[in-house]
């Protein structure tokens, strides 16, 4: 079956631009996670959704980062006024339920110039 998909796969933004990154989780998966992975590092947790409810956003690095999942399926991570330090791979993962195995998408590589 289809796995987690993310789009775009690559995004180049000029500093100060807003970007929106999309995640399509596996159908029927209740839980959705966003992670940020800097070059050469492991992924770092950003935020967690259970259906449409954002239950944990403790990992979002600043108020420029905003995530939503309005209908409990597709999620969008938005970054306003991008900065160079936002350059990273943004990974989305979904699981059938919160404590279950997480299935990751291929990520979106964001480069801020």
């Amino acid at each position: 079956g289809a796995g987690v998909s993310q789009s775009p796969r690559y995004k180049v933004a000029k500093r100060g631009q807003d970007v929106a990154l999309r995640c399509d989780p596996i159908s029927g998966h209740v839980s959705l996670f966003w992670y940020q992975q800097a070059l050469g590092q492991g992924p770092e947790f950003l935020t967690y959704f259970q259906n449409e409810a954002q239950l944990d956003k403790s990992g979002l690095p600043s108020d420029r980062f905003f995530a939503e999942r309005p209908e409990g399926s597709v999620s969008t991570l938005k970054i306003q006024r991008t900065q160079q330090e936002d350059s990273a791979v943004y990974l989305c993962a979904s699981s059938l339920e919160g404590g279950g195995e997480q299935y990751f998408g291929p990520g979106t590589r964001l480069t801020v110039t």
Partner: protein
Amino acid sequence: LAKTTQPISMDSYEGQEVNITCSHNNIATNDYITWYQQFPSQGPRFIIQGYKTKVTNEVASLFIPADRKSSTLSLPRVSLSDTAVYYCLVGDRGGGYNKLIFGAGTRLAVHP
């Protein structure tokens, strides 16, 4: 969540068995040990999970001593396609959700 320590990198050759050891001295009673694999330009992929003793699946084995302060991921007869970064994670599997905490991982290079 318990912190983990694992080697930054390892080298091996095709056909050899590779053992990657992870230290987690502060592991809690409810914590499970999970290993993920990540190829370039892909998201991490679950390999194996265990609580104590030994777990084996079609991909790998996980050895956990009685004190659970370390664990060893064993990959039998590696091939070039096993070249990847391997992450050891510990955390509570139960409850509401798993906020996975990754370290820097171990970069395994398999040579012909």
